[in-house]
Structures are given as C-alpha cells and as structure tokens.
C-alpha cells in the first residue's frame, strides 16, 4: 500500500521532537562552548563568525582557491566517496536527488521535486525537476536516473555498495520525469542515501571506461575543466545552472598536503578557505584579521575500537574497566581544545539511529581497577594501539588515552603506522598484533549507515547476537516505532558490551577569508563544503 510521505514527513514524529530539543541544546552548548574557549571569537569585534556585509555578485566572478589534503584519484561518483579530496570536487560538479536544509535537520528537494515511499519501504516513486540539463547537453529525465541507479548498483566502489541495493526488482519509467523503483528487500534509507549520491549523465555512463573517472559530467553549478598535474583540479562556472549560484567564475582545487601549510596559505590570502582546522589552530585563524571561522557539530565521532576476538579485550569487564578509566572531558579539553562533546553511544546525536545508551560509564578509577581485578588482571597487562598520523587528532589522542589507561595498569604502547597499513589492520579479522584501534567515523547520510555496513562487527570483531540481531533488524525495517526499537536495542547492547569505546562527538571548525560568504555552518555530514551558494562579497 503506497502511503504518501512528503519530504516534511521524512522523519518520524518522535525524532522530530527529539531533534528540536537537540537543536536548541546544540545552540546553547555552542554559545557557551565558544565563550569558554574564545575559540570562535564571538565576543570580539569583527567577530570571527560574522558573515560579510555584501551579498553575492550578479555574475560569477573571481577564482576561489580551495586546498585539498591529498591528490585526487578520480571523479567517478560511484568510487569517489572514499577519499575526501575526490568527494569535494565531485560535490561541486554533480547534484543529488535530495539535499539537506542548511541546518541538516530534514531533506529538501534538489534534482527530485517530490518522492513517495511505500509503507514497507520497498517501493519508491521519484519525481524529477523539469528543464535540467547535464553539462554535456543531455536532459535530466527518468531514463537518466535509471541509468545512474543501475550503474552505481553494479559498480564495485565502496560507497555505492553501502548506499544502494545490489539489484532492483523494477526500475520503471512512469513518465518522462518520474521513476518507480521496487527493491527486493526493504530499503528504509533509500531516499536519505540519495543525499550523498550524484546523478550522472547517461551518455557518459554509456560511453563508460576511463572517461567516467577522468571527465565527470553532472548537473551541478560547476563544470569540470581539468585535473592538475600534482593532483588538483579546476572547475568552472556552469552558467546554465538550474538553482542558486554559482558565484565564482572558477574554483581551483590545489593540493596542500601539510596542515600547517594550508593554514599559512589561508592567513596569507593564498587560499579562500581551510576545511576542518586542527583544533589547536582555531584560535589563531579566528584571531587573525582577514579571516574568520565557522563551526558546527558534525555527524562524526572519535572512538577506540577494541579487538574483541582475542585476549585480553575479549573479556567485557576489561572493556568496561577502560570505559571507566578514560576521562573524556579531559580529552576534549586537552586534545580537542573543547571542540567535542562527550559521547556514550555509537551513533552521534542528531543522526537517525541515535538512541540513549543503557549504561553510562562515569570516570571512576576505583570501579575500573575493581573490574580489572575481577577479570584477573590486577597487575595489568601490555597492549598495543595502532594509529596513523592521517587520522583526525592522532596520534596525540591515542597517547592521551594510553596515558589514562596506564592508571589502571594497562601499559598501552602507541604504534604509528602508514594509513593504509592501519586501515588494513583495522579490518583484518585475523590480525594479532594490535589490541586497540583509535579511529573516527563519519555518518555521511544522517542515517544508520555505519550500523548497516557492519562497521561495529568488522572493527571490533564482536559478533554477539545481542548486537547483530538489532543491526540486522534496523536494515530492513522502515522508519517507525519498530525501527526505533531496533535502534534502542542496538545502542543498549552496545553500551553494555562496549566493543567500541565512544570518546566524543566532533565539532569541526573551518577557516575562511573574511569576505567569503554563503557559508555559515559546517555541513553536518562532515564531508566538505557546499560551494554552490558561496561567494566573495564585493
């Protein structure tokens, strides 16, 4: 039975109330946080958070220089989600069916003007916007959307595999602008995931091959111009864009791998923006004249995953002892410089899938030591943590956690390795060398993406039914009370078993030139700015 659910009702009512409370709490916390730190400079004159006075220009003007953290590897949207550098460029060239509103609380139309979803979340009807053309002249229509969905489902890329069903029962062109999708199994997040998936030109998909990676064709406000030799890219304004913007004549993505160099470039006006500043540099950028900072809670958190399939962390008492031993407030103050909020759940607050934990572990060294003794480790033991310098706030955070665990007898050594080696070790179920993996995860879609992807099991090697059963249930249950119950069951079991220790939810800070407008809050999905409304004030 098709139940019409418009975009306003994308989120169940229970969550809407919670979201309101959370949004207001966020505002209060952000304000008080800023005053404690002075990091966002809201009290100074020419305050770091103020938008420029002038509005966007009439026609696209100027070059916006945006630094990438690493070289791009390709611009095929089916594969580009894994690397932030790729995704940032892709984000400028493509549109998505739906988008989030600026506050990231609900879905708003983008290429899709309306969508309907059946009660069992297996049948979706998407209505597309009329009169939109791809950069190569092809019209946006249901056939184009069908081609994109088919291509992405079969592509072996990491992202599309997570976000889309592997096959469809039906992809029916209801009319020129409406597509009906029927999937074999329920896809409760199908529409929500479209906020991350780009719509590609059918002509490009048909041509296939390397061109998909090298010459992206989308409908976005910027067209792909070329890739630079050292890994950057250049995109130019698409003057026929259907929506607001673009306001830059071109965006020059250049690779500046070193974080310090990026900030120096921002301070000397050589780039327009520095995304995700290290927390220790926020004050410096906010305090400098000519630059300002923008911050926001993101759907991202920092965790320590325990390796639960071998001693000593196969014992839940040891894991709970660690949960008691870690002083999260101190970590936020010292390492994240206040740019974080204590977290006790796998899912960050604000993400669909969040539910309060069943147990909270207070910072209590006595309880921790008692648990260690009960587990037979009164004398402590040695352990090894595996981090890479490419991770957010690492390796300082790992060292700080190791220092705190030392107080209950765990002599943790932090081993800093290459990022690829770390990632491989994290996901290798048979590895024996490491006991803990500090890591950070980002929820790209605002939905229970990482729960469904099996992240908890693969990172912690914990496969108890109390966790896996609700995880399986939430993947196939449409939004509603039953799904909420699965969320609650999962977070309850998660907090009781602590296969992964949540540390805190992150607050990202971005630095901009003072005269850059159209960017007032860090996007919650933590995956790069939206360039379309951005401009340089006259």
């Amino acid at each position, binding site marked *: 039975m098709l139940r019409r659910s418009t975009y306003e009702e994308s989120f169940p009512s229970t969550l809407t109330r919670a979201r309101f409370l959370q949004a207001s709490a966020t505002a209060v916390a952000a304000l008080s946080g800023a005053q404690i730190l002075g990091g966002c400079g809201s009290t100074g004159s020419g305050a770091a958070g103020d938008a420029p006075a002038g509005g966007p220009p009439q026609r696209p003007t100027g070059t916006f220089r945006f630094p990438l953290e*690493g070289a791009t590897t390709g611009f095929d949207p089916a594969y580009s989600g894994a690397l932030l550098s790729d995704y940032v460029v892709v984000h400028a060239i493509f549109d998505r069916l739906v988008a989030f509103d600026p506050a990231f609380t609900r879905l708003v139309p983008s290429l899709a003007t309306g969508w309907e979803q059946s009660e069992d979340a297996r049948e979706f009807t998407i209505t597309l916007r009329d009169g939109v053309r791809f950069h190569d002249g092809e019209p946006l229509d249901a056939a184009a959307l069908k081609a994109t969905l088919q291509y992405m489902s079969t592509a072996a890329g990491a992202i599309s595999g*997570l976000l889309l069903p592997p096959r469809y029962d039906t992809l029916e062109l209801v009319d020129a602008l409406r597509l009906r999708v029927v999937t074999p199994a329920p896809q409760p997040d199908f529409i929500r995931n479209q906020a991350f998936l780009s719509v590609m030109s059918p002509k490009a998909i048909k041509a296939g091959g390397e061109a998909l*990676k*090298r010459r992206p064709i989308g409908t976005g406000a910027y067209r792909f111009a070329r890739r630079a030799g050292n890994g950057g890219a250049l995109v130019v304004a698409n003057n026929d864009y259907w929506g607001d913007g673009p306001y830059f004549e071109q965006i020059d993505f250049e*690779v500046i791998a070193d974080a310090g160099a990026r900030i120096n470039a921002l301070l000397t006006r050589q780039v327009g923006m520095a995304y995700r500043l290290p927390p220790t540099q926020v004050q410096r950028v906010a305090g400098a004249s000519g630059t300002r900072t923008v911050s926001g809670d993101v759907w991202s958190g920092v965790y320590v995953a325990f390796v639960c399939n071998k001693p000593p962390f196969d014992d839940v008492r040891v894991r709970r002892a660690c949960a008691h031993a870690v002083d999260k407030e101190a970590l936020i103050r010292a390492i994240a410089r206040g740019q974080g909020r204590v977290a006790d759940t796998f899912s960050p607050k604000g993400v669909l899938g969040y539910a309060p934990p069943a147990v909270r572990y207070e910072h209590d060294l006595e309880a921790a030591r008692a648990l260690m003794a009960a587990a037979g480790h009164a004398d402590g033991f040695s352990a090894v943590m595996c981090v890479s310098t490419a991770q957010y706030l690492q390796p300082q955070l790992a060292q700080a956690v190791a220092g705190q665990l030392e107080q209950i007898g765990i002599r943790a050594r932090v081993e800093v390795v290459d990022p690829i080696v770390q990632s*491989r070790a994290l*996901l290798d179920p048979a590895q024996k060398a490491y006991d803990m993996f500090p890591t950070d995860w980002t929820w790209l879609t605002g939905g229970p993406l990482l729960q469904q992807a099996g*992240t908890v099991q693969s990172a912690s090697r914990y496969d108890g039914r109390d966790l896996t059963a609700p995880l399986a249930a939430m993947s196939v249950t449409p939004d509603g009370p039953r799904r909420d119950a699965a969320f609650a069951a999962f977070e309850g079991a998660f907090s009781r078993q602590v296969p992964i220790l949540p540390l805190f939810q992150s607050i990202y800070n971005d630095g901009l030139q003072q005269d850059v407008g159209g960017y007032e809050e860090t996007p919650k999905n933590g995956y790069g700015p939206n360039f379309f409304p951005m401009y340089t004030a006259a």
Partner: protein
Amino acid sequence: MVRSALARHPFARLAFSRLAQGVVVLFGALLVCFALSAATGDPADALTVGQIGADSAQIDALRDHLGYGDPFLTRLGDFFAHALQADFGSSYRTGGDALGAVLAALPNTLLLVACALTLAISLAIVLALISVMHRNRAADRSIRGALALVQGVPDFWLAVMLVLLFSVTLGWLPAIGFDGPRSLILPTLALAIPVLPTFVRLMRGNLLDVMKLDFVTSVRAKGLGERDVVLRHAVRNALPPLITFTALQVGWLVGGTIIVETIFAWPGIGNLAVDAVKARDVGVVQAVVAVTALSYVLLNLVADLLVAAADPRIRMVPA
C-alpha cells in the same frame, strides 16, 4: 685499436670508465627501486582501503586486474624491459604517463635546487674570502661563530620560521606554491642556509691550503698584494674541489627537498614522490627514483669531467 686510441687519450679513458661506472650505478638503482616499490605495496591496497567487507580474495582479484599479481621475477623482468625504454607505466590516479608526471614536476625542483646552490656557493665564496683575509680577527670569528650556530638548526624549523616571519607576520612573500619569482625566495633560503656552513668551511679550507702552495709564494714574491693573491689566483685553484662537492650536493638536494617542498607545497618531485609512496602509485615512485639516480649519475659525470679537463694531474690518477 680502440684500446690504443684510449691509451693515447687519458681524458677519453677517464670519460669512458666514468660512464661505465655510471651505468652500473644506474642499474643498481633501478633494481633497488623496483624492490622497494614491490615491498611497499601496490594500488590494489590503496584502492581498497576503508572498504568494509573487502576480503583478501577481492583484493587479490583487483591486484591481478591491475597487473601486480605476477610473481616477483616476472615483474622484475618486465620492469627492466620497460624501464630501459623509459616506460614506467601509468599513474593509476591520473591515468597519465608516470614518467611524464615526474618530468613535469622535475623542472620545479631543479629550479629550486639551482637557485639554492647558486646562493649557497656565492655566499660561501664571499664569506670564505672575508674569513681568510681577516684570518683569526673579529670578522673571521663572528662568521665562523654564526655558521656554527646555524648548523645546528633543524632545516624544517628554519623553513617554518621563515614562513612565519616573512609570510604570515610581515606579508611580504607568499607562503606556499609556485606563483612566480617571489615564490622562490623563501624556499631557496630554506634550502641554502643549512648547507652554507659546510660550503664555507670547505672553501675556506681549500683557500688556506692553496695559499700555502709554492706558486702562491712566487706570486707574492712578484709583489702582488694580499687581496690580488687571494682573489685572482687562490680562488681559481680552490674551486675544483668545490665543484665536485657541489655535484654531490645536487644529488642529495634533489632527493632532499622533500621537507622544504612539503612546507611550501612546492610542486616538485619531492612532493610528488612522497604522495606517490603514500598512495602506492608504484609507477610514479619508480620513475622518481630512476630520474633522481640518473640525474645524480649524470651530474657527477659532468663534474668529474669538468674537473679533469681543468686539472691535467687528475687525469693521471686511475679510476
């Protein structure tokens, strides 16, 4: 017949033997670079990173598909066969030619190195001259003292300080990138200053040695003043060792610009190489090592021949 011809021309013999040695070194360098790139991994590792659910079978399939699945010796043979034709494959990230990417970035690094060496040598000659002409007096002592202090400063610290002072605080010069001649100034200083003490010491030592030689005494006896002695005669004779030393430094600098290129986001092969290693872009890594080794060999060859051409005595020394 060739042998007798060579016997009659010691210079040609020297050139030939040096060339042969260079080829051997190059061969060895290619071998090492291949072994290294084999040890660090291949693009299959990089492409599957973070992919939840990617098991080893999938990764191996991808590896075979990309052409890295063959046994070591097969790949080694392949590598040499292609390398001798200057083909290092393509970069899996750009799709373009790996060697092309390196050759595009090489001029930027060479320019930086050339400027740094020019600055270092010129300053070294000037400072060494002052130091020698005012031997053991205030100027000499202060130069040597300042250089002794400078020698202990880590080069990345120096680079960061330069950026902080001249770019961020004073705003006189750009902080990163290569946008024109002004971008050259800070990176050149950051590269030149750390090697300056060694150059000065070498030049000063050579000058002092040369000045003890007999011919200088005879020139002095002719009545020329100290300044003329030093400037016109001693310097010219003290230069050859500096040339050899410089050639050595060039090879080092081209590989040793990594730190400076990182801090200044300079689009040279240092940055390219580090990036390629991290991303397991095997073709680019191999091409960088090969190009660096080749430039070292060539530069040393040229330097040796220059010195030999200038000094007849050298040609008599067996290789």
